[in-house]
């Protein structure tokens, strides 16, 4: 196997190396890739879509259909993880651990047991519980709003600067994952339960597809945002710009929630009880 792997890799590398001398030089502005289709985007995207970030314009408009499926791919990955990992069966008989905050004593309550009386002083903990760390918790609490704000900025400002729905969505998702890591999974699940997360993901993709269908119903081609002009009361160019924003929001919603769901399933091996 080792030899086979080496031979395959070397043969393959040889094939690639064989072709490389015929490549245009790196950074050559006269290469076909830079002269055939791409100049159109560079020169016309602003006039066509009123979006200065050409990548966003191409991503969400000229090749918006690709991006729709890109979002669908992410959604499919979320579904796939759910399908493969999620534990649907009856929960195994489990004991729950509680910690008495003032004393630090840990209680194990078996199936069917009740909490002690003054339960406000108890908190539920994971079986692999790491002692309370003030710095991480506080820093987490502190940083989190800024990350989320930044994520929203990235989504909203994707027209003018690097970023867009996908990046913003991932950052927002990462913020939630960070919350789960710095606190525990239960608190994240409390804010964004599994079902809600996946429904929002589906709704996110539906916003994208729905925009496309809306264009189609309004007489344009699928995803031809210019058709939205009448509905939005703006000229076709601005309609494209708004259309791009709409789908970016859809992408952001889908990506955020799918990332979080993926984390839920992977970190708990599908049981959705205790995180890392």
């Amino acid at each position, binding site marked *: 196997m080792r030899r086979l792997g080496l031979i395959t890799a070397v043969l393959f590398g040889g094939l690639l190396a064989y072709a490389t001398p015929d490549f245009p030089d790196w950074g050559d502005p006269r290469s076909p890739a830079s002269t055939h289709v791409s100049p159109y985007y560079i020169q016309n995207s602003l006039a066509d879509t009123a979006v200065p970030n050409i*990548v966003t314009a191409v991503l969400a408009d000229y090749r918006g259909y690709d991006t729709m499926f890109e979002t669908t791919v992410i959604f499919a990955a979320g579904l796939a993880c759910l399908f493969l990992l999620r534990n649907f069966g009856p929960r195994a008989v489990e004991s729950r651990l509680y910690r008495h905050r003032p004393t630090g004593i840990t209680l194990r309550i078996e199936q069917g047991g009740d909490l002690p009386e003054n339960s406000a002083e108890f908190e539920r903990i994971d079986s692999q519980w790491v002692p309370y760390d003030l710095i991480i918790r506080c820093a987490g609490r502190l940083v989190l709003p800024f990350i989320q704000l930044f994520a929203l900025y990235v989504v909203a400002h994707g027209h003018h600067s690097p970023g867009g729905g996908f990046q913003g969505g991932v950052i927002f998702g990462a913020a939630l994952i960070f919350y789960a890591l710095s606190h525990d999974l239960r608190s994240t699940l409390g804010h964004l339960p599994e079902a809600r997360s996946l429904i929002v993901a589906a709704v996110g993709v539906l916003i994208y597809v729905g925009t496309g269908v809306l264009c189609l119903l309004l007489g344009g081609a699928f995803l031809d945002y210019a058709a939205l002009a009448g509905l939005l009361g703006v000229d076709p160019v601005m309609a494209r710009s708004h259309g791009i924003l709409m789908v970016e929001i859809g992408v952001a919603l889908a990506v955020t929630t799918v990332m979080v769901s993926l984390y839920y399933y992977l970190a708990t091996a599908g049981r959705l009880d205790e995180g890392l």
Partner: protein
Amino acid sequence: MWDDFVRLAVAKANYWIYIVLMCIGLWGMIVKGNLVKKIIGMNILQTAIILFYVSIASKAGATLPIITHHGPGTDSIQAVGHINPLPHVLMLTAIVVAVATLGVALALAMRIHRDYGTLEEDELLAMMREK
């Protein structure tokens, strides 16, 4: 001869690196027996391709594909002045695809570990043969 070689090496440095990375990834996927290692190899392979595409996009002396200030007409925007945006768009999609594949692959690996208690390929094969 030597000069040609150096010219070839320098002018296409990124392309050579991507070939190396691609071979490393492929080699890792074939040779490594641990499933997580194979998944890492798979990701290296995918990022190598992304590097290749990004290298296509670059243009000497051009700036980012974002139009910061522009005149009234489209004529003022010069194609040579901006990096080719198309490969970037494609690669955004490719990254997403890569992370989606990663998620599914890890999920499968976890299922395998749940069923067999190991991630080593030879041990898995031995167990399959036993049953």
